[in-house]
């Protein structure tokens, strides 16, 4: 893909949680002030610690948001898919980017400079409300993960991380629900605050029980209920894999 079509972008924005309450004219205006940028696999859109100048929405592909821990280990905070925004908070604070955003596969992003974002928010109250909603959702997500880290077993945290990814990128396939994006065991370890060794042990056990199948950076949930039962601590008496 060498270019992005403007009508496809308008369509994407019209469906995005942040922009869907705007009318067609406002949407066109918002899109007109955006800068489209192509990012190669692994390339960073912005880095942790840099001055936060731009607000960003993924048009195509996916970004991986990571943070460096004190020990130099990476923590995977979340993935950002098409129509989703990132770096909203950084722009309003005029602060530094709190994380690094790198492309997973070839990716297109739309960017707005701080002054443009401020002008858009002033002109379109619906956008300001949607931004507050987005920020509170992110906060809720962080609170949830904090609780998970503080109180839950590793297996439960891995199950919840997979369910979050199902919500973001799940696709029904013949043998279950595929998480339709590249996802390594190392990614899962970084998302759940544990080690590659532990994630491998957990996934191998689940594979043996027919709950998931994994390979080539892809995870398929073969027993949706089996995974939910682990995540929610339900009785697992009737865990069944798809035949």
């Amino acid at each position: 893909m060498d270019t992005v079509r403007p009508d496809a972008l308008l369509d994407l924005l019209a469906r995005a949680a942040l922009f869907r309450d705007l009318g067609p004219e406002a949407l066109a205006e918002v899109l007109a002030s955006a800068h489209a940028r192509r990012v190669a696999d692994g390339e960073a859109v912005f880095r942790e610690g840099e001055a936060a100048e731009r607000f960003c929405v993924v048009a195509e592909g996916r970004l991986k948001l990571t943070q460096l821990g004190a020990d130099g280990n990476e923590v995977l905070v979340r993935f950002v898919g098409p129509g989703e925004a990132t770096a909203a908070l950084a722009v309003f604070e005029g602060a530094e980017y709190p994380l690094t955003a790198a492309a997973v596969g070839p990716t297109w992003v739309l960017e707005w400079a701080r002054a443009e974002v401020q002008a858009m928010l002033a002109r379109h109250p619906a956008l300001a409300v949607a931004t507050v909603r987005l920020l509170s959702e992110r906060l809720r997500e962080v609170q949830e993960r904090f609780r998970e880290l503080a109180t839950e077993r590793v297996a439960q945290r891995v199950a919840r991380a997979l369910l979050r990814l199902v919500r973001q990128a799940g696709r029904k396939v013949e043998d279950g629900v595929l998480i339709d994006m590249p996802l390594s065991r190392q990614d899962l370890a970084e998302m759940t605050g544990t080690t590659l060794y532990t994630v491998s042990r957990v996934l191998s056990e689940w594979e043996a029980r027919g709950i998931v199948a994994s390979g080539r950076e892809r995870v398929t949930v073969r027993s949706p209920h089996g995974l939910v039962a682990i995540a929610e601590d339900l009785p697992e008496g009737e865990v069944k894999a798809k035949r």
Partner: protein
Amino acid sequence: MGTVPKEPSERLTVAELFRRWPRAAAVFAGRGMACPGCAMAPFDTVAEAASSYGIDPVELVAELSAAASRPSGGEI
């Protein structure tokens, strides 16, 4: 896709069912099923959800139909 279901059926996905009949969520909750709000609701059918919990799908659909046909406003 595109057709609006007229009554609860075991072939609908759980998410379609909840969209069309929000009160179905109470039936699931009453049976101790964790389907309302579940990430898997768009992917599993009512029949699959029932079988996961060892519930007879015919019985569940009957209960869902009864809840769907109850006049609205009569309960909280």
